[in-house]
């Protein structure tokens, strides 16, 4: 019998009372301790988890899963967990990549996906969505009515509104539309011991410290996000696609810095280093050794025209036309490598970080070098995909085969450690948009500094005095 079966049996034997109590509160339809559900709700999509899944080495099995259908259901669960000291692990789309969801202490998984109402306010350009609304369904809903949220993470098809807020997500079109923190106008959260905080949506508000921000990026450690009001945009009237090849990655970054300085805000800007250029644009003749940059500029046509002229004036690369952009649009949600290479023993992951312009190029070289120096690493590459007048996000990918005698988990940890230390040494931030989870937690204190980190922990103690909300996530 696989070892996982014994773990499963243990989780099942621990679930009895909690299951019965929650059934009394919510009814059988919303509660499960079925073995299949316990296994499925044991991990998020952290790439290293693929090895756990494949090798039947899952290590965090919950006792009970609940699917609340209203904020009142959520209150009941939080109240129960508080009184009985049972950990709660909120679950949205399960697309997190940092083990932000990992029910290490058993407990209750609360999957929000049955809370999926959407209400569009066309006059005020706002949409209010319950936490479990799927990203793609929300975007399709808005597009059908002539709007867009402009929030298009690669996880769009899997992730949820609640998950976006909880992880401080951003999307592929962020240079124009911003990250979720720029979109969030109002939020509803259930915190222990079962209280509802409802921060109403306003275009702006100066009412003390912005409490909405307490929950953006909170990754479930304070409470459960149940509803969010987000700003929306009229669906863009015009879209222009441009692409260029430059001799170097650095050269392209420099042009983009100047474009943003001039005030243009293309929705999408992506710059690929030499390896990733070949990976995505191998079909362009003579592209080997070059760096490709793509742009999507969209919105009201007069503004788009002005932005296009700024980009064309500043960016000096060789013009490649629309096709590289169309290729990216067609392939941007295709994630095949995970399924193809993990079964062969390859370990891979992505690491997104950010830095001011003055440090971006050094950050790129130092992190690539650090990842390559770990024994077993075969490939280390990057692209830059989110830009600000002050700096940029670098999105690294590494892949390798653990050396003999090293487990995939050990090899994975070593590369992460090397990359994180390199980022901190250069002075970048250890996360741009994937968040912290349990994978990055060891470096959060160093990132924030002792005093800020202690404040974070104190805030956790104040909001969640019994430590039942996603315990141990972010090291809290």
């Amino acid at each position, binding site marked *: 019998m696989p070892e996982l079966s014994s773990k499963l049996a243990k989780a099942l034997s621990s679930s009895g009372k909690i299951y019965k109590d929650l059934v009394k509160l919510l009814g059988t339809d919303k509660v499960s301790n079925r073995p299949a559900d316990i296994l499925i709700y044991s991990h998020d999509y952290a790439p290293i988890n693929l090895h756990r899944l*494949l090798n039947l080495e899952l290590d965090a099995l919950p006792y009970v899963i609940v699917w609340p259908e209203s904020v009142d259901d959520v209150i009941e669960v939080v109240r129960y967990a508080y009184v009985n000291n049972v950990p709660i692990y909120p679950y949205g789309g399960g697309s997190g990549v940092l083990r932000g969801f990992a029910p290490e202490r058993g407990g209750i998984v609360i999957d929000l996906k049955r809370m999926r109402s959407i209400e569009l306010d066309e006059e005020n350009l706002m949409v209010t969505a319950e936490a479990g609304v799927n990203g793609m369904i929300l975007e399709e809903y808005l597009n059908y009515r002539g709007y867009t949220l402009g929030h298009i993470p690669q996880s769009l098809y899997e992730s949820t509104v609640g998950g976006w807020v909880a992880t401080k997500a951003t999307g592929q079109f962020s240079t124009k539309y911003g990250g979720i923190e720029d979109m969030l106008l109002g939020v509803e959260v259930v915190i222990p011991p079962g209280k509802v905080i409802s921060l109403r949506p306003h275009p702006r508000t100066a009412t003390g410290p912005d409490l909405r921000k307490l929950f953006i990026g909170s990754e479930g450690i304070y409470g459960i996000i149940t509803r969010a009001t987000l700003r929306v945009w009229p669906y863009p009237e015009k879209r222009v696609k441009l692409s260029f090849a430059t001799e170097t990655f650095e050269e392209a970054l420099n042009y983009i810095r100047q474009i943003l300085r001039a005030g243009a805000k293309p929705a999408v800007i992506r710059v690929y280093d030499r390896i990733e250029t070949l990976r995505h644009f191998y079909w362009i003749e003579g*592209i080997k050794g070059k760096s490709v940059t793509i742009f999507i500029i969209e919105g009201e046509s007069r503004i788009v025209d002005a932005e296009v002229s700024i980009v064309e004036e500043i960016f000096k690369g060789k013009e490649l036309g629309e096709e590289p952009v169309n290729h990216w649009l067609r392939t941007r949600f295709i994630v095949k490598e995970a399924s193809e290479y993990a079964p062969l023993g390859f370990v891979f992951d992505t690491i997104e970080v950010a830095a001011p312009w003055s440090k971006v190029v050094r950050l790129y070289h130092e992190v690539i070098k650090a990842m390559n120096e770990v024994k077993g690493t075969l490939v280390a590459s990057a692209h830059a995909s989110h830009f600000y007048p002050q700096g940029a996000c670098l999105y690294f990918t590494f892949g390798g085969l653990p050396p003999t005698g090293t487990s995939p988990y050990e090899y994975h940890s070593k590369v992460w450690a090397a990359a994180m230390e390199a980022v901190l040494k250069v002075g970048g931030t250890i996360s741009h948009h994937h968040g912290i989870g349990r994978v990055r937690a060891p470096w959060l204190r160093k990132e924030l500094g002792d005093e800020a980190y202690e404040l974070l922990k104190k805030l956790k103690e104040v909001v969640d005095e019994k430590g039942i909300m996603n315990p141990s996530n972010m090291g809290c």
Partner: protein
Amino acid sequence: MSERDWIFEALKEKGLGTAVRIVTTYITGKLKGVEDLVKCALCPNMCKFACPVHIVLGSETYSPAGRARIAYYIKNKVLEPTEENTKPLYACLNCNACNVWCPFEFAIPDVTHPVKVQLKKRDILPESLKRIEENLRNYGFLYGSKPAEITRKGKVLYLRGCTVRHHLRDLARLTIEVFSKLGIDLATLPKESCCGIHAYYMGADDLFKELARVNIELLSSSEWEYAITSCPVVAYTYRVLYPRFGIKVPLSVYYVAEVLKDLLKDKELSEVKRTVVLHDSWALTRGLNSSSVIELLRLIPGLDVKLPMRHGREVFDVGYYCTLLAFIDPELAKKVAAERLRELKEVANVIVTASPDAKILFAELGAEVYDIIEIVAEALRV
């Protein structure tokens, strides 16, 4: 340069020897060996937003990759193949919504199929499905013994499908009248057997092939020019599933709209003054890549046809008797239908559909719903 050249180029930095060793051992060597079930189980589940059952239940266990993971755990003996544990493999609309978004072009019913076949060989099948299997084995009909019918003669064979024969007989009669008005006599055969798709969904491949054999034998007569059906799933089974099993179909089998859109092109039709919303059938739009229904409806004067948010290849379909859902979890089938009905009613109150299951479900939920043949009959004044 080709799709995977970047790997070799990147590996070259580690030395040419390493590059050659990795590429020949792993990339070109073993890659093809990874089975579909594993690929699907390890996928980030990018298709799940399109899965009607997953959306309604909100459960990862009933998402496409979730189902693949369950099959993987059963296969690897982590999960016992109990009725409860295997339910996610069978409680599926089999609507291939996942296929539209899959980078590997998988559909979850096909991905989990080998595991279901293995379970069936061990005589493991949910109790609620055993009765269906018995009906199909004993009678070749989903609902038990076939209804008493007379043989009708005609140039074109009419395959009605089990659900139309059992639940929607008026629809079958109307179809015969519509074609008769167009000068085509439809032949019907009391011996017509179930297309067998339920057997496929259950993993009972022997039964599936036997039902196909009986049907192919009936079709092999040279009496008919072609065959039509009122059930898109029947058309899909004959045109996609039978060939997949190496079964040659001797006659072209069309869903009625595929024929009617051509037959009605130059006909004088009466106005049907109505605003309707179209509920497509996955078997047509995704399964057969056919837009025949909307093409047909657009020929009808006065008919204002609206499309809901999810239509065409992206249709959010419903399923009942043409799936296993009606037998394994009918309440779930109704929840899925209610979800779709809300979306349709945001567009128009009157629904037109090509799917017999949708007609039954939406009517049960109190909606005003017409099969396309009823609209055509009105336009032809049948």
